[in-house]
């Protein structure tokens, strides 16, 4: 399943990053708000669900080659993070769903697609 397909299925909105990267295949989902856990556990191509919207999220997503960051519950993303994500080509998506709902729905759909 690609990022674009996931966005359409779950109604996610593009908040930052290049549209040209939306065709990337998603390899898995990781959900955690502790930076060190995310840094160690995120694999290349993973979706990272986190309530944090600070600059460190962009740095970790870039370093781990995550497919995208998904911010739940319509939490407003800091402007400096949006600018940095655009600069670093990190996709940041936004959703009105909770992190738990997003995790469940994404994993269900990825398993179904496999």
């Amino acid at each position, binding site marked *: 399943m690609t990022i674009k397909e996931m966005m359409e299925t779950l109604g996610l909105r593009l908040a930052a990053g290049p549209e040209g990267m939306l065709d990337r295949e998603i390899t898995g989902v990781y959900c955690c*708000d502790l930076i060190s856990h995310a840094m160690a556990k995120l694999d290349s191509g993973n979706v990272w669900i986190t309530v944090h919207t600070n600059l*460190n999220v962009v*740095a*970790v997503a870039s370093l781990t080659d995550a497919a995208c960051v998904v911010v739940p519950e319509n939490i407003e993303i800091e402007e400096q993070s949006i600018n940095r994500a655009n600069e670093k080509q990190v996709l940041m998506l936004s959703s009105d769903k909770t992190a738990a709902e997003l995790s469940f729905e994404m994993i269900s759909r990825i398993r179904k697609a496999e």
Partner: protein
Amino acid sequence: MGQVIIRDFEIPANDFTVAGEASSTVRKLLVQLGVAPDKIKRTAIAMYEAEINAVIHGHGGKAHVEISGDKITIVISDEGPGIEDLDLAMQEGYSTAPDSIREMGFGAGMGLPNMKKHADELDIRTEKGKGTVVTITVYF
């Protein structure tokens, strides 16, 4: 890779606008050099944690990186307060990070354990009031 590639970075204190930049630059370099992805990942995790520690705890510092044909060695040094009890600091979950840092998602007490887990060799020299030097080696 016949010759040794050397890179040096400044790590500013408490500046999260550039935190992770040194690790990011090294990661890109390793990708360009064609290093195996799992080795790059382990290097990035260990170096990022050390870099962040220098930003948060060490009043900033320096990173010195040497890449040869068979390994990468990263030396991150700071002139911060030093680590009071290194054995305690190595335990998962132990952290001295203040609330303002925890609010950003740090302070899980996983920094040093992550370094130990992902580096092939980890050497930490620390002295109270003088600073800390962390040396990370990953073999390719």
